[in-house]
């Protein structure tokens, strides 16, 4: 099986979904690129290259560049979806949710419920998310933890290329609105990815390590860091379950609770700040539903309650690393 980067895996999913279904199209800023310019149209394929080649393969009607207008981009996607299309919109950076929050939260996320179950809005909105590029306060946020709190939206956070492809294909065929957060530091990370189409169901966590002493739940770019931490602890005779929920909404609560019941310990890791985030959410779940199994305190590993700093060394201490995860795992045993 060929190794592919996460960028290429998502790109392949888009190519295949568009080839398979005429109702799928992509829309966003520079998803084709060079429109109206002297240079050749379609040569950009998104600022991170995720929509590369779609313009050449499917033309201007299905790979649609827009002005800088995030609210209108999301609305254009959700409106087309209400009419039966399957748009995949790109909002360049997850932080720009700040610009189009109404269209996502009050509009797209609530159609079905407010319309008495009489509509479907199969739109996918993609975002490059998270820190690691010294991109400072307005280009580094994860945002998925915020969006998880809104009923009506599904929230996907792949941590590797294989999952990214299967989750993207699921997102496109899913009949509900899906927010798809691509951790941008992982775009170049590669693993084996099948050439054929496959889907990964939402709400089904993946187990990346199995162990007895502690359950570690991690999201997005924290998953490889948690794996690193767990592998390092093996030498000390500590073994852990590593759970990547892959979707925060729906959340595979059974997988998490079963693991916690077996290990008796829980560490939850995310790169976002702590308040009202996924680590707090999952810690509360375990405290509520698996309290009697717990042998030690639940530990949360996350960023501090501050915006993302620009300076590379500040950002390095802001985003959790494997040493903080190791300390937390040991902290559950202290």
């Amino acid at each position, binding site marked *: 099986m060929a190794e592919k980067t996460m960028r290429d895996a998502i790109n392949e999913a888009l190519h295949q979904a568009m080839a398979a279904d005429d109702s799928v199209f992509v829309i966003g800023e520079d998803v084709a690129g060079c429109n109206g310019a002297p240079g050749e149209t379609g*040569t*950009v394929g998104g600022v991170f290259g995720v929509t590369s080649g779609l313009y050449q393969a499917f033309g201007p009607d299905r790979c649609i560049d827009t002005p800088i207008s995030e609210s209108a981009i999301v609305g254009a996607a959700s409106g087309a979806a209400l009419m039966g299309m399957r748009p995949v919109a790109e909002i360049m950076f997850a932080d720009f949710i700040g610009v189009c929050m109404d269209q996502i939260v009050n509009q797209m996320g609530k159609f079905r419920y407010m319309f008495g179950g009489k509509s479907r809005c199969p739109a996918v909105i993609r975002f490059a998310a998270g820190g690691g590029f010294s991109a400072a306060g307005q*280009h580094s946020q994860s945002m998925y933890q915020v969006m998880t709190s809104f009923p009506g939206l599904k929230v996907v956070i792949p941590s590797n290329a294989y999952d990214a492809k299967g989750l993207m294909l699921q997102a496109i065929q899913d009949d509900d609105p899906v927010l798809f957060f691509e951790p941008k530091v992982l775009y170049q990370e590669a693993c084996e990815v099948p050439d054929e189409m496959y889907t990964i169901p939402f709400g089904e966590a993946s187990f990346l390590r199995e162990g007895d002493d502690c359950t570690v739940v991690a999201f997005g770019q924290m998953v490889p860091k948690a794996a690193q931490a767990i592998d390092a602890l093996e030498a000390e005779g500590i073994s852990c379950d590593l759970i990547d929920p892959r979707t925060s909404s729906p959340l595979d609560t059974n997988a998490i609770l079963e693991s916690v019941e077996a290990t008796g310990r829980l560490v939850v890791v995310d790169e976002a700040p702590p308040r009202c985030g996924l680590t707090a959410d999952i810690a509360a779940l375990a405290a509520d539903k698996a309290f009697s199994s717990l042998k030690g305190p639940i530990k949360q590993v996350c960023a501090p309650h501050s915006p993302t700093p620009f300076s590379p060394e500040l950002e390095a201490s802001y985003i959790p690393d494997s040493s903080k995860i190791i300390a937390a795992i040991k902290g559950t045993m202290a």
Partner: protein
Amino acid sequence: MSLDKEDLLRAYRMMKTIREFEERAHTEIMNGQIAGFTHLYTGQEANAVGICEHLSDEDAIISTHRGHGHCIAKGADVPGMMKELWGSSEGLCKGKGGSMHVADVDKGILGANGIVAGGPPISVGAALAAKIRKNGKVAISFSGDGSVNQGTCFEAMNLAVVLEVPAVFVIENNYYSEHTNISYAVGCDDLKARTEAFGFPVFEADGADFFSVYEAAGKAIEHARSGKGPAGVFAETGRFHGHFVGDPQYYRAEGELEDLRENSDCLKNFRARMAETGEISAEELDAVDAEVMAVIEQSVVDAKAAARPTPEQVTADVYINYGAAS
């Protein structure tokens, strides 16, 4: 609005400072010295300087992702900016903001901005403060040909008219928003007319010519200062680099960059004008160049040697006062 020799020398020095700051930043980014996303203003210097030469520290500007030029022209400390790009704790923003968030509120610089069209609404508020205080100050927002398509920009322009505030909307049309041309992204074929349709006068300028921008800005700012409500400046310009450092620039025509550097260089144009009028000699301008180069060189030396931030600074300055809890 006549410019004496001192004014002219200051304007030239500003443009040259921006040029050298940007060209040096470009070199240092290519050398891997500066982290993050950096958008250079090279080629557009006359716009920032032509506007800001009309302003004092009490007038406000709010800039964009391509903010270095606006900030320098409004009086930001150049060594402090260089240190900021380096992520030093001695930087203008203590290394917290970097290139996209250079700011100095004491100088009336309400920040560069990483969100396209994040600035115009804030400029309406700054202008509202001036209107309420009746102090004759103005607030300037800079936008690009791409930024003007954002809803926030429309809302800000309309609100400024409704509230009759002294806001000046400066639109720098460099023809591209990232990789997309204005002819695609702006649906109508006359952006200046579209802007005027909000209900304020827009003065046109050649963004490669300091004198042209200075004149148009003078009219717009005078309009706003005199209590007649908002105004606009619409300048045609060109950026000499990619959208960000590292941009392959597939959207350009062959020879476009060479042509821009050859025929739309505000520094060359300024020198040509001085040669014509005889107001400043080439030797005097050369001397300014040499001084500017020395300042930029020293600011890089200082930035490299400047203090690095320490981890406990991550959580500093989130709030002014968050009580005892943390």
